[in-house]
């Protein structure tokens, strides 16, 4: 049967990574819609507990490849095991995280299988597709939806003729939700010996340096985010002061990160993190669609911008028209006064 398969990457603690749980949540919806099984692939070493932790997310079958040569992640061992598994199982859909692992592995798999792959999807749906030239209709096709080029369009990509249909999704874009705490799936061991004999030699990991996560804006309740309109790295310091005062985390647009105003870990949007804080204060942000994709689910949005027509204002609850370098200190002063 042609099922939905999620490649589940592991965290440094050998647990299922959040992105994989988010994909399983989405995968469960797709599998239910398609009337097929949700399957997961867990490749690593000592991963039985991690594999079983997937059941509450509605996973029916967990393919487990357990071998020391599969951890830490290296491209070719995972490629060899997963590509053989996909060839044997013939899933109709395969989902990967758009992480440094998923973005390394998925394209190599897609190339091998000669199938399509859409990167950084912000939405996945099932629907029909009629080929504009042949008028042939395809039912139950995966709509791979993502903002595209330049930022002012949303593209729906389909792969009508090739299987599996593959997509990557950034962490935080989909919601992670337990489907049923009592859900029971099955572990299906995968034989790896034949795959790993040759693949093991090509690339050797000499050392790894895992950094403590210094910046994590994903879980922040309040976010103060700066765009290119902040003007400089020095001006960006004001956002840090502002954030310290009101107990917020500092985020940024891609333009601000590219301009060197702050660290890449702070980037919010389609190619950064997706956030859902209770308050989002957008400072000098025009509001490209890629940025909005990462923050528009914030409960309340305040925009501070000199441009009354900035696209971000259209999704803001409050728009303060003015220069960030003037308005933010004013805002801070008023906040302090009102706390007294």
């Amino acid at each position: 049967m042609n099922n939905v398969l999620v490649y589940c990457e592991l965290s440094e603690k050998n647990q299922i990574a959040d992105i994989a749980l988010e994909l399983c949540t989405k995968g469960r919806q797709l599998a239910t819609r398609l009337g097929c099984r949700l399957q997961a692939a867990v490749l690593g070493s000592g991963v039985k507990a991690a594999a079983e932790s997937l059941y509450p997310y509605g996973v029916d079958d967990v393919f487990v490849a357990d071998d020391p040569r599969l951890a830490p992640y290296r491209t070719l061992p995972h490629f060899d095991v997963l590509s053989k598994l996909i060839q044997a199982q013939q899933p109709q859909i395969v989902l990967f995280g758009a992480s440094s692992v998923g973005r390394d592995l998925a394209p190599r798999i897609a190339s091998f299988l000669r199938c399509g792959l859409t990167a950084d999807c912000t939405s996945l749906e099932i629907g029909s597709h009629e080929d504009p030239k042949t008028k042939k209709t395809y039912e139950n096709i995966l709509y791979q939806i993502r903002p595209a080029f330049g930022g002012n369009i949303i593209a729906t990509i389909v792969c009508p003729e090739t299987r599996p249909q593959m997509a990557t999704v950034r962490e935080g874009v989909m919601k992670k939700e337990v489907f049923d705490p009592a859900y029971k799936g099955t572990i299906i061991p995968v034989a790896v010996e034949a795959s790993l004999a040759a693949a093991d030699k090509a690339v050797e990991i000499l050392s790894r340096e895992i950094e403590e996560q210094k910046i994590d804006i994903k879980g922040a309740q309040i976010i103060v985010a700066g765009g290119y309109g902040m003007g400089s790295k020095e001006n960006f310091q004001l956002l840090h002061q502002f954030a310290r005062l009101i107990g917020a985390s500092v985020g940024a647009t891609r333009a601000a990160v590219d301009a060197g105003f702050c660290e890449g870990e702070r980037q919010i949007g389609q190619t950064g993190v997706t956030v859902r804080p209770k308050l989002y204060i957008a400072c000098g942000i025009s509001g490209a669609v890629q940025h909005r994709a990462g923050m528009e689910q914030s409960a309340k949005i305040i925009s501070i911008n000199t441009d009354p027509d900035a696209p971000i204002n259209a999704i803001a609850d409050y728009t303060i028209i003015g220069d960030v370098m003037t308005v933010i200190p004013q805002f801070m002063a008023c906040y302090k006064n009102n706390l007294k």
Partner: protein
Amino acid sequence: MSYRIVVLAKQVPDTHNVGADAMNADGTVNRAALPTVFNPEDLKALEMALQVKDQVPGSTVTVVTMGPPRAAEIIKDARNRGADDGFVLSDARFAGADTLATSYALSQAIRQLGPVDLIFGGRQAIDGDTAQVGPQVAEKLDIPQVTYAEELVAIDAKTITIRRRLERGTECVKATMPVLVTVTSAADDCRFPNAHRMIRLAKDEVRMINADSIDADMDRLGLKGSPTKVKQIENVVLAHKESVVLEPTEAALNELTASLIKEHIL
């Protein structure tokens, strides 16, 4: 000992300067309407290739790109910066290619060069951000890949050692050649064009290669060889909220902060 090195590069629309005519009706990019630049991470890849050449004199660096004839501009730029030669895969039959068809064309072109030791490319291009072509070329050539490279650590007779970015941290890996390496923006900036080279190479034409000269299966090229189809393009309709517009007066900001505090949002 010397190496045969290929750099994969792309001339990309400058996404900071996008106009309304940037897209064609069929959902492909209207490249003619846009100013172009050398894809930034491909320049970093070129620098890493040139660093290998610095360390191992006698090595050659060939830059390969696919695109319209004007993509020759980046080949010239790369030569001025130190690449030995390069060519453009340019043919209407390549047009409309997604990453799968692109990687097929590039890999066939690389095969025509004979044995290659190292292939460098940017991790991703700024017009699509897919990061797919590098790993796909590696698969098609059946060689290992090292993605997200930040630093060339060492090179010896048969291996290259690279520091690469992980989700949380970095790792140092040693790969046996031939290998394909994709390079991120954290790697060293590319050296500037050299004035002597610019003068010396100014009149050297850039080779154009068409689909007939790469021993390709025509069904695997261009739009025809691309499994991904654009079903629909929608202009973004902003979820429109009734935004309360405030002038930055003390009274207005006072009221706003007071109400946010009262609602336990601040």
